[in-house]
C-alpha cells in the first residue's frame, strides 16, 4: 500500500509542477548554504515542465513496479536535484547520484528512461551556449539516426524503448545546437513521456508472455485489447507522425533548422528527415508485429490484459504526452483526433463501413490455433532485413579482399 500512496504524492507533485510551468513568470531561486558548498537551486517554467514530465512517468513506474520502489523514489529525487541545480557542484553531485542508482538497481530501468534524459538535458543546458553550436548538432544528428536505426532493426521491446529515449535526446541536442532551448526541452519532455511506457510494456510482456522479442509476440490485440491500445498510442507518439507529441517535437526542431539555414540547418534537416523515416518504420514494425497478425507462441496467444495498476501506469505518461501534443500543436492534433472519432462514430452508427466497436468483438484465439501457420507470417527479423548491415563472414571476407587489393603494393 505504501508505494501506491507514494505514487499519488508524486502525481500530485507532477500536477503542481505542471501548474508552475504555466503560471511561473520569473525564475524562482532558492539558496541552501548549509547543505553544501554553494548549493543553489532555481526553478523556471521550462524546468517545471521537464519535472512535471519526470514525475508523471515516475508515478507510472512506481505504480507498475513490483520491486525497487525506494530506488525509484531516490532516482526521482536525484533527478529533481539535477534539473533544479544552479551550479556545477550540485549538478554533478545529483548527476552522479542518479547514475549510481541506475547502475546499481536494474529494476529502475523504465524510470531511468525518464530520469537520465532530464539529467542529460540539465548538463547540456549547462555546457552548450544558448545561441547554439555546430558541435552539438553533429553528435545530436548521429545519435538521432543511430537510435532510429537501432529501433528499426532490434527485436527487443526494451531496446526499442532505450532507442526512443536516445533518439529524443539526439533531437534535443540538435535543437540546442540550433539555438532553441525551448525546442530541446519539448523533445526531452516528449521522450520522458513516451520511452518509460514502452519500457514498462516490455517488462509487462516479459511477465505475461515470457518474452520481449517481437519474433515471438503477435496477435496481442485480440487477447490484450486495452494494453494494445495503449501500446498503439505509445508507438504512435514514437513514430513522429501526426498527431502526437513526437510529431510536435520533430516539427519544432525542423522549423528551427529551416529558420537557421546554412550548413547547420542543412545537416539538422537531413538528420531529422532520416530520423523521421527510421522512427516511423520502427514504430510500424513494433506495433504491427507485436499486436497484429497471428500469435507466434502459445503464451502470446494465451496472454490477457494486465491489471488496472499496470494499465494506469501506462496511461499516465501517455495522457501527459497527448496533453503535450495538444499544447504544442493544438489544431492539427485535436482536428485529427476529432475527425477520426467522428468518422468512426459515423461508420459504426450508420453502417457504411463495418467497424467493430473497440469495447466488443474481442475473442481469444481458438484453441485449435495452428501453430504451424505462423511460420508463413513475416517476422520482425524479415521485416527489417533490408535495413540490416551485412555482418556475415562472406561479406566480411569480400570487404577484406577488396581492402587488400587496394593497399597491396
Amino acid at each position: 500500500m505504501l508505494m501506491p500512496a507514494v505514487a499519488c504524492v508524486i502525481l500530485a507533485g507532477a500536477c503542481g509542477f505542471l501548474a508552475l510551468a504555466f503560471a511561473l513568470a520569473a525564475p524562482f531561486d532558492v539558496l541552501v548554504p548549509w547543505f553544501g558548498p554553494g548549493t543553489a537551486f532555481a526553478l523556471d517554467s521550462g524546468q517545471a515542465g521537464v519535472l512535471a514530465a519526470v514525475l508523471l512517468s515516475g508515478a507510472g513506474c512506481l505504480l507498475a513496479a513490483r520491486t525497487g520502489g525506494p530506488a525509484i523514489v531516490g532516482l526521482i529525487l536525484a533527478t529533481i536535484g539535477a534539473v533544479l541545480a544552479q551550479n556545477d557542484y550540485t549538478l554533478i553531485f545529483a548527476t552522479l547520484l542518479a547514475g549510481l542508482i541506475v547502475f546499481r538497481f536494474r529494476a529502475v530501468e523504465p524510470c531511468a528512461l525518464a530520469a537520465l534524459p532530464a539529467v542529460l538535458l540539465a548538463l547540456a543546458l549547462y555546457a552548450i551556449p544558448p545561441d547554439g553550436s555546430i558541435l552539438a548538432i553533429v553528435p545530436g544528428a548521429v545519435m538521432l539516426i543511430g537510435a532510429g536505426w537501432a529501433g528499426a532493426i532490434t527485436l527487443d521491446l526494451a531496446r526499442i524503448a532505450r532507442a526512443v529515449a536516445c533518439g529524443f535526446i539526439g533531437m534535443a541536442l540538435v535543437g540546442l545546437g540550433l539555438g532553441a532551448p525551448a525546442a530541446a526541452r519539448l523533445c526531452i519532455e516528449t521522450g520522458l513521456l513516451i520511452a518509460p511506457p514502452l519500457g514498462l510494456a516490455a517488462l509487462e510482456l516479459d511477465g505475461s508472455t515470457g518474452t520481449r522479442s517481437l519474433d515471438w509476440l503477435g496477435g496481442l490485440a485480440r487477447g490484450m485489447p486495452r494494453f494494445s491500445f495503449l501500446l498503439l498510442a505509445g508507438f504512435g507518439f514514437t513514430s513522429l507522425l501526426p498527431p502526437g507529441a513526437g510529431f510536435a517535437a520533430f516539427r519544432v526542431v525542423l522549423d528551427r533548422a529551416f529558420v537557421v539555414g546554412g550548413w547547420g540547418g542543412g545537416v539538422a534537416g537531413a538528420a531529422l528527415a532520416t530520423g523521421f523515416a527510421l522512427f516511423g518504420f520502427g514504430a510500424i514494425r513494433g506495433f504491427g508485429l507485436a499486436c497484429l497478425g497471428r500469435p507466434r507462441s502459445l503464451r502470446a496467444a494465451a496472454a490477457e490484459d494486465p491489471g488496472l495498476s499496470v494499465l494506469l501506469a501506462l496511461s499516465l505518461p501517455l495522457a501527459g504526452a497527448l496533453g503535450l501534443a495538444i499544447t504544442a500543436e493544438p489544431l492539427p492534433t485535436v482536428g485529427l483526433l476529432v475527425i477520426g472519432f467522428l468518422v468512426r462514430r459515423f461508420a459504426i452508427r450508420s453502417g457504411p463501413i463495418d467497424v467493430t466497436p473497440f469495447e466488443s468483438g474481442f475473442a481469444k484465439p481458438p484453441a485449435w490455433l495452428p501453430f504451424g501457420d505462423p511460420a508463413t507470417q513475416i517476422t520482425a527479423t524479415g521485416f527489417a532485413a533490408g535495413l540490416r548491415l551485412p555482418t556475415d563472414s562472406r561479406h566480411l571476407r569480400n570487404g577484406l579482399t577488396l581492402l587488400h587489393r587496394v593497399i597491396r603494393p
Partner: protein
Amino acid sequence: MTVALRLAATLLDGVLLLALALTLELARTRLAARITTGPLPPLTQPLRDLSKLMCKRRVRPAFASPLHDTWPLAACAATGLAALIVPGFADGSITASYAQLPLLIGLIALGRAARVLAALDAGEGLQGRGAARAARTGLWSDTVWLVALAALAIGAHHASIPALQTSPALVMMLAVVAVVLVPVVGEAVPGDYAGPERALFFAEAMLRRAVLLALLVDIAVPYGIADATQILTWPLGLVAFVVKFGLGALILAVGGAMVPRVSPRISGGVALAALVWALARDIPVTSVAIGTGLCVMVAGLVRLWQRQPSLEAAALVQAGIALAGFGLGVPRGGWVILIGIALARGAAALAGRNAIGFLCLAALAGLPPFGLFTGDFIVIRAAFPVSPLLGAALLAGMVLVAILLLGRPSPSVIRPGSRMAAPLVSGALLVLLVLLGIAPVLNLIADFAS
C-alpha cells in the same frame, strides 16, 4: 464574409482535387488499355468501380484484430486532411496556415502507415512481405521527400509551401525525385479487404497521388493562383490549376515511361544534391565545377582500377577533366575533350575489338596525336597558375589513366583477329580525332592553345 469565402475556397479545393484524382485514374486506365490494345473503359469507370465495391459484402479474416476495419478509415482521414491542407487553385484558404511541409509529409506518411498495418493485420505471409516492402519504400521516400523539400525550405527560411524559394535547378531536381517516387501505376490494396473497405483504400491511393502532384505543381509553378477572398479571381485560378495539374501529370507519366527501370536510390542522391546545392549557393559555380570535376575524375580512376568497362571509365576521367576545364575558365579545352570523347567512343563502338579499338583507347588515355590530348593540355596548363596542387592532381589523373588503360588493356576492348564492324566510318572518326589533335600544331586555329 471573408471567412465564408476562404472556407468555400478550401472546400472547392478539396472537391477539385477529388475530381482530378478520379480523372487521373481514368486517364491511367485508358492509357493502359490503349497500350495493351484492350477495350477502352467508359469515362465513368472509376466511379462505377467505387460504387460497385461499396455495395459488395465485406470479408473479415479469421485472425484479424479489432482494429482491422479502422485502418482504411485512418488512411482516408489522413490523406483527406492532406488534400484539404495542400494549397490548390487559391491562396489564403482557411487551411493556409497549416500548409507546412512537415505536416503534409507527416499526413501522407500516416496514410501509408495505416496501409502497412492493414497488410500486417491478417497475419498472412505474402501480405506481410508486401507490407515490409511498402514500409521500406516508405522509409526511403519519406526521407527523400523531406530532404528534397528541406532544400527548398532552407532557402526560404520557412516551411510554408507558398513561401518556398525555387530555382530552375531545384525544380529540375524535384521533378527527378517525383518521377522516381510518385507512383504512376495503380497501387495494390493491402490485406484481405473487400467491399467498402477496399473502395476506401482505392480512393485513398488515388487521392494521395493527386495530393503529391498538387504539391509539386504548387512548388514548381507558383503562377496563376487566385485570391481566396476575391471570388472574381477564382475562375482564372481554377483553369490555371487544372492546366498545371494536367501538364504535371503528363510530365510524370512521360518521365515514368522513359525511365521505367530507374533505381529508387537515385532519388536519394538527387535530393541530397538539391540540399547541397541550396546550401552552397554562396560558393562560386567555378569552384563547384572544379570540385565536381575532380570527383568525377577520381570515380573514373576507381572504376578503371576495379577493371570495370575501360572505355566508360576512361571517358568518365576525361569528362571530369573537361568539367574542371569549364570551372577554370577554359571552355574551349572542355569542349575539345567532350567532342574527343564522343568521337573516340563512336569509333570504338563501330570498330570492334581490334587495332582501331586500341587506338581509341589511346585517344581516351589523352595521348597525342588525338584531340583529347589538346583539350587535356589546355586544361592542365590553365590549372597550374590557379593552383599547382590542382594542376598536379589533374596531371596525375592523366598519367594514371594512361598507365591503367594501356598497361593492362581490357580483353573486352582488344581481341586480336576480330573483325571490324564498320571500318570506314570508324576510321573516318579517328581521322577527325587526329585532325582535332594536330590543329594547334599546324596552326589551323591560330589562338587555339593560347
